[in-house]
């Protein structure tokens, strides 16, 4: 069974919704069935946003939110304090985290594997703005092997163009090459 479920946590403006969609596009490039949608109330910059991506080798019929993710992608490190953040993370699941500091210990008892990168620093360098989403997609691809870097870059091209695409390709490539994977 190839089916995986990924839950993204970010804040309005950081690209969580787009990252979830770009991951779906990347998996579709590899011939997988995909589904991705966000869940938020009002569209407001800075509000916590959750987004979901599913991929499978079978058609995806359920239209529900993701409750038992195989991966949690946390785009904004200030969200680590949210009580329900780690709810349902599978024991073999992975946390993909944007963190300004190296992780010394598991941020939650249910986290046994984490892929960590200072994606904000990478994004400020490559894009000039704090939009760390595509860097974390590169990190996710490397840490899980679920999707190739080439497919991730093809997924970006479905949603971005011109200079912005070039910058985000660098952002994702650096996420892929510079991510640190930890286990506990």
């Amino acid at each position, binding site marked *: 069974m190839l089916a995986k479920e990924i839950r993204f946590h970010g804040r309005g403006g950081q690209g969580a*919704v787009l990252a979830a*969609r770009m991951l*779906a*596009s990347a998996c*579709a490039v590899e011939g997988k*069935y*995909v*589904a*991705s*949608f*966000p*869940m938020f*109330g*009002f*569209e407001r910059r800075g509000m916590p946003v959750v987004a979901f991506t599913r991929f499978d080798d079978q058609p*995806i*019929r*359920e*239209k*529900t*939110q993701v*409750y038992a993710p195989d991966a949690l992608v946390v785009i904004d490190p200030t969200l680590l304090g949210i009580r329900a953040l780690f709810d349902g993370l599978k024991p073999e699941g992975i946390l993909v985290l944007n963190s300004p500091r190296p992780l010394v210990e598991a941020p939650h008892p249910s986290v046994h594997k984490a892929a960590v990168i200072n994606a904000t620093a990478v994004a400020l360098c490559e894009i000039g703005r704090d939009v760390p989403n595509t860097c974390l997609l590169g990190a996710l691809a490397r840490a899980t092997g679920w999707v190739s870097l080439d497919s991730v870059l093809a997924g970006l091209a*479905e*949603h971005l*163009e011109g200079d912005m695409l070039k910058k985000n390709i660098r952002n994702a490539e650096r996420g892929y090459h510079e991510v640190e994977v930890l286990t506990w």
Partner: protein
Amino acid sequence: MAVSLDRQRKVITGNAAAAYAAMLCRPDVVAAYPITPQSEVVEQLAKFHADGWLDCEYVTVEGENSAQNVVCAATMAGGRAFTATSSYGLVYMYDAMFNTAGYRAPVVMVNVNREPPGIHAVCAGQQDMISVRDTGWVQLVVENCQEILDTVIMAFRLAEDFEIQLPVMVNYDGYYLSFLAESVDIPGIAEVDRYLEVLKSQPRRPRLLPGQAVGCGSHGIGTGYVELRKKHMAAMERVKSKLEEIEEEFAAMFGRKYGGQIEEYRTDDAEILLVTSGSAVGTARTVIDAKRAEGINVGLVKLRLFRPFPRERLSEVLRGRKAIGVLDRSICFGWDCGPLYMEIRALTPEVGIVPMLSFIDGLANMDITKEHIGQMIDAIVSAAQKKSYRQVTWLP
């Protein structure tokens, strides 16, 4: 998003699927006002128009009431017209919707289901479409992004058919479908042209033209009113067979079909049934499969056509079961149950007296989860075993 009018497969949202479908049908006029969770439909169509892909009169309006009046007038002048709305926008065009239907103006409209005013909720819910039930519009409800695209295309065939000439509203759940990105087969514009071509060979519907007076909705006194109402009602009844006919043609051309008025899923030997509509159908399919694996003979009925109500086909499929559950994403004030449930109860003389259970779930973005649907099926099983049951259950 790179645009193309050739056949393609792309990961797009439900909203983008609706916009693509509208564009491929070459509307003469588009007039719509943005509202969450529909805004992307308007943004996409405006962009298609601005970039030269969509050759139409694009009317930027100051609100939904004007949008509905513009598209109504456009179809009465003989054009093809499209609009899209949701929730507050839908109720803001309430009076205009009666006009469009009463004038038999074949507008196609997308309504992205969201809770209506009262308790401010920028959230999914089907109460908006229920609230315009009696405006005289045809209403369809769909399950996924592909079905959104396909149904909007079919809606133009249905609305403009000479035997129908009614406005058609295609409903899909806000958030769970409007923002859902899935792989969608987008037909080429030449294929869509071929599918819609038959409309050109039909008799021309009456049109308002400068210098040629035609009375519309202006002689509704006594018998004249009754005659128009009866004709409207008869056209509404013809929608049932017409929908199945045009869907057969759609299937022959595009290879996809949805069951016309209703779709039955694993109903053949089912002792109990769950009836629902919208995005919950997809989730319910997975739960039905799981319950079947446990040895429970349960089936699913997807209500695709809400107006006219598919009385005959529903009666046929519901008859002879031991218990029936109906899942609503809205409520029916004054009946203390779900609206679809209320309508299905009205089929009791045809269906027979069996336990009928109303489930209300998914209000205001609440997730209709697999666990919830599992609980509903367990309750229907229990009722079928002649145990006492609750007629109405709110989840969670």
